[in-house]
């Protein structure tokens, strides 16, 4: 994956320095930078600071509007308050539309208009005491911003819409399944693709994962409300595999923004995988998970299995990622079926659960070794240090929680040391063979 593409600004700055020092020509510099979707004369740096500061300033103005509304100016007549804010909303939107049509800009004004529109809804609800529970207001807010965001392809408006829709999902999701999220996710996803925004795509994916978890909660709640069960972990295992497949597919894309979002999703799915491994490496956590599973009828299994199967087919057909992680993704559907068939049974309630914990700890160790090797082989610092941190965390946690008491923990540390030593020897032998191969190839070339 092209992790370096996430550091485009630093790369551009370095490249300019190389050109200035005469180490490379301008053409070479541009050719290098073109691999990461930028160029030497890209002035995004200077305009970025301006854009970020102005955006934050506008956000603060929007928050000020909301707080002014919240202050409840009861002494001002209702009609004056309401018409004043509605007129402000229309004016801000008209200024934004004019700017967009004339110069292709104006999303800042439209963003402010979007907040003013939401504040107007909240003001009306405040004036007429429209109930304590008012997720409908958030829904109407997101709904009203959606067409504007779509028409001007504004990332800023899409983020505002998604943030409000996310709040609505949290508020409404306690009472009914928030099906309408599919609309907001669809609009934001389409804007991300049309505006070539890797950042927005990442936010859409994060909200999508939260939404799927909430929907599964409603399946568990049997229509009475969202219920969060052990099966959610199975769903998230499947989703992680799917995100892994997506990140490697996106990393091969021609489009720079897809490559960048692929790198970001890859990094976050790796972090999610490591977090799950660390959680499952605790005996109490794993036992609790296995005890709560309800066998093969668990909705979490079928949701996770669907995602895992899609991921398996994707990585096999497109040959995505390196062999170790690919094998793990391919095996995940079987692992999930096995875990759920085993979970909830008398066997899982007994001491047999420790076998699962040992397997997870060994998997964590192997994952750390693969990460370190991949990090060194492909020059990916993030992978290398993730592997090192994983090994050290694993050692610290096992030393503290004394899994299997003193003797059991000591045996586990010895097994871990043997595995690490074996991996190091294997790595060294492979390096020596590669060096010997290169030397013989160079010798043949000279003769």
């Amino acid at each position, binding site marked *: 994956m092209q992790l370096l593409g996430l550091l485009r600004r630093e790369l551009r700055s370095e490249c300019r320095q190389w050109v200035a020092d005469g180490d490379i020509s301008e053409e070479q510099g541009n050719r290098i930078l073109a691999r990461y979707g930028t160029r030497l004369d890209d002035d995004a740096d200077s305009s970025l600071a301006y854009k970020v500061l102005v955006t934050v300033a506008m956000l603060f103005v929007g928050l000020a509007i909301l707080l002014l509304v919240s202050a409840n100016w009861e002494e001002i007549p209702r009609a004056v308050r309401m018409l004043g804010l509605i007129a402000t909303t229309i004016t801000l939107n008209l200024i934004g539309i004019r700017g967009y049509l004339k110069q292709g800009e104006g999303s800042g004004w439209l963003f402010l208009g979007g907040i003013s529109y939401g504040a107007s809804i909240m003001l009306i609800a405040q004036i007429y005491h429209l109930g304590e529970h008012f997720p409908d207001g958030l829904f109407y807010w997101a709904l009203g911003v959606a067409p504007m965001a779509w028409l001007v392809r504004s990332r800023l408006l899409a983020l505002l819409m998604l943030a409000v829709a996310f709040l609505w999902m949290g508020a409404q999701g*306690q009472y009914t399944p928030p099906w309408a999220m599919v609309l907001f996710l669809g609009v934001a996803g389409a804007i991300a693709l049309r505006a070539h925004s890797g950042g927005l795509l990442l936010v859409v994916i994060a909200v999508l994962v939260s939404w799927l978890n909430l929907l599964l909660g409603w399946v568990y709640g049997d229509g009475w*409300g969202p219920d969060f069960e052990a099966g959610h972990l199975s769903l998230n295992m499947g989703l992680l595999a799917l995100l892994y497949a997506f990140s490697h597919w996106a990393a091969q894309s021609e489009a720079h923004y897809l490559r960048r979002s692929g790198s970001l999703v890859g990094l976050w799915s790796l972090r999610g995988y490591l977090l799950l491994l660390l959680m499952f490496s605790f005996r109490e956590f794993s036992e609790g998970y296995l005890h709560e599973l309800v066998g093969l009828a668990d909705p979490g299994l079928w949701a996770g299995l669907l995602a895992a199967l899609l991921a398996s087919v994707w990585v096999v057909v497109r040959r995505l990622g390196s062999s170790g992680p690919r094998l793990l993704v391919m095996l995940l559907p079987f692992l999930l079926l096995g875990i759920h068939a085993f979970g909830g049974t008398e066997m899982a309630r007994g001491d047999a659960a420790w076998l699962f914990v040992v397997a997870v700890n060994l998997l964590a160790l192997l994952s750390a070794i693969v990460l370190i090797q991949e990090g060194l082989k492909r020059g990916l610092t993030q992978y290398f240090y993730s592997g090192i941190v994983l090994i050290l965390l694993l050692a610290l946690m096992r030393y503290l929680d004394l899994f299997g008491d003193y003797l059991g923990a000591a045996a586990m540390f010895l097994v871990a040391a043997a595995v690490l030593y074996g991996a190091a020897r294997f790595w060294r032998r492979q390096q020596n063979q590669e060096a010997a191969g290169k030397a013989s190839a160079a010798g043949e070339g000279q003769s």
Partner: protein
Amino acid sequence: MKRCHVMGLMVALGLQVVVMAGVFLGGVYPLWVGEEIRLETRPVDPRDLFRGNYARLGYDFSTLKASDLRPGDVVYLPLEKQPNEALWRGGEPQATEPETGLYLRGRVAGQPWSAGNTVKYGIEALFAPKEKALALERQLRDSAVAVVRVAPNGKAALVAVEAKAINN
């Protein structure tokens, strides 16, 4: 193409205006056509993230006990008043719309882990400036009366909360 785009943007802005008008009409409709009634209530003061401080109003009929109604279901609460009483009282909640009499239309919004479901009728919050909301909570802790307007379709709007003690 550009004209089409301008039309689209104007329609998008128009949608925002229509939504704002809809929220306004939804709020003001019971005040225009509704019958005024008085209900006993108990206020407390929290803060809404977007609408500021308010006094939360609890009613005896806000909790459904041992009900098979699910969150999101619509509930109708017939309202009753004896000729010699000043306050209206909630009757037995039902899933079907009453054919006669005054009633409140609410929605089940409960937590399955609690003893019973909560029903929201849209009259549970009185928004006021912070000091006023806190003062209302102190003054009306023991005895308060919510003045409510109820439209023929059961939609209700809160008009005011009074401290007046009413002896039935």
